């Protein structure tokens, strides 16, 4: 007896595809498209509203009606795969990138990526920051071998546009000041070391540095990557800033496979 499963399969298909015949009857035993439409509408609207709640800046940038249409297209092709709706929309920013009507506004996807990172940071696991004193015993010549575990909320969004400024003025309640799109690239560091999510525009050498660290690279490897982005990269300043903002939760020394050619003091 698989009657129930077959009904649910047909019901699910009709929810996902408006061309499919509705399931269920009115009290007289006749099909009624308006009744089934309540379920279709609940499903679609609830997903759109979930996205609306998560992307206030994008909503303001494209307007309410356009956002709802765009979110509706996304929801139709990306139904939730989990009953936890807190993190619904993990591919929405990529969808915005490819959404044909927005092809002339490529900075919008970067704003959406910041908003997604904000949501993930908001719900990320808690973790105690590492006390800077914990690094006091690391010999100066081994500092480059340190691997940092970053706070679970840390997210980095790269943008060739002033994405952080665009995001910030559009989540503020005030009338946004004009922002020139050619006013410079802004990479974003999004994190919630404690109660509040913080969004910072970081200098061009910070994002590659953080990328390497978050992938498990050593400080020396991260510094090398950052130095290729900026000749004036200051490792010590970056380490101090990370520790001070509570974004490092653990540190360990990676064993060297070969001895370095000479001892060098990376940071003091």
């Amino acid at each position, binding site marked *: 007896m698989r009657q129930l499963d077959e009904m649910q399969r047909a019901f699910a298909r009709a929810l996902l595809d408006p061309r499919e015949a509705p399931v269920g009857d009115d009290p007289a035993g006749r099909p009624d498209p308006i*009744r089934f439409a309540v379920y279709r509408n609940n499903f679609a609207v609830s997903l759109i509203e979930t996205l609306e709640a998560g992307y206030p800046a994008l909503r303001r940038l494209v307007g309410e009606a356009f956002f709802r249409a765009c979110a509706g297209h996304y929801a139709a092709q990306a139904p939730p795969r989990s*009953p936890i709706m807190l993190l619904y929309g993990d591919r929405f920013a990529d969808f915005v990138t490819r959404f044909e009507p927005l092809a002339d506004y490529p900075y919008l996807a970067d704003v959406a990526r910041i908003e997604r990172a904000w949501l993930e940071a908001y719900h990320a696991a808690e973790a105690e920051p590492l006390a800077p004193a914990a690094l006091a015993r690391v010999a100066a010549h081994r500092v480059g071998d340190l691997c940092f575990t970053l706070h679970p909320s840390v997210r980095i969004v790269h943008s060739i546009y002033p994405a952080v400024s665009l995001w910030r003025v559009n989540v503020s309640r005030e009338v946004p000041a004009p922002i020139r799109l050619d006013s410079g690239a802004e990479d974003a560091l999004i994190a919630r070391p404690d109660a509040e999510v913080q969004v910072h525009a970081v200098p061009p050498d910070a994002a590659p540095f953080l990328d390497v660290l978050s992938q498990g690279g050593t400080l020396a490897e991260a510094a090398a990557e950052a130095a290729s982005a900026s000749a004036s990269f200051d490792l010590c300043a970056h380490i101090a800033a990370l520790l001070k903002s509570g974004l490092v939760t653990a540190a360990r020394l990676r064993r060297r496979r070969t001895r370095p050619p000479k001892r060098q003091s990376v940071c003091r």
Partner: protein
Amino acid sequence: MPARAGVGLKPAHYREVLEARPDVGFFEVHAENYMGAGGPPHRYLAQIRSSYALSVHSVGLSIGAARPLDAAHLRRLAGVVRRYQPALVSEHLAWSSHGGAFFNDLLPVPYHAETLAWVCGHMHQVQETLGRELLLENPATYVAFGESTWSEPDFIAEVARRTGCGLLLDVNNVIVACTNQQWQPSRYIDAFPLHAVRQLHLAGHAADADASGRPLLIDTHDRPVSQAVWDLYARVIARIGRRPTLIEWDQQLPSWQTLQHEAQQAESILNAADAAQGAPHAAAR
């Protein structure tokens, strides 16, 4: 759990609740909203829980699905229950997942032997995993199924009898389902196993019409409780006495004062039932 009126806890009211410490009987949260790894929702709920009774309402188990339960989701629910130690835990007589997709809605089931077997099996599994009673909520429905062989209240009574589960009587859902299915609310309540009711829900609904022009009520949770729902609630409380009662308001969220006003209206009905039965006044905290 005090047999008083409680309110659904919304993030928009976290701070106000913590600052003003309003006098409400309990708060209810959707389990799924506290399944994030960390973050402000957990911080606020932990603080609020330390001062208030709590009920946990799950909306994602898909109890009425003709497929095995999502074991990972059930473990997550058990984690929320362990962490926050609610007085009551509830789910819906509905399904919400199929073939890996989650529909974020409470979808209807036909009432026949096969559904009964699936629902009872799932209720047993959840109660065993949680090590406690689960309350099953009557649904708001918009369609009927010709293959149903049980009435809705008889079906629910049978689930309660077979699984020993408690029941959450959503009075708004009774009015919505009875209007949409052309049942008599008074007969629905007469057939409903009121002895197993541990909690009640009250909410607002919107009025529409189906393709034939019959009234079609939509369970919107976006406005005050309707007079028909208050009247039926008062009749149920007069019969069963005080029970914890939740004001559900999930959309078009009003001010905290409006929510508390709805809760006070429910409390006045609870108090009136006490007076009628000559029972001691149990409203004081």
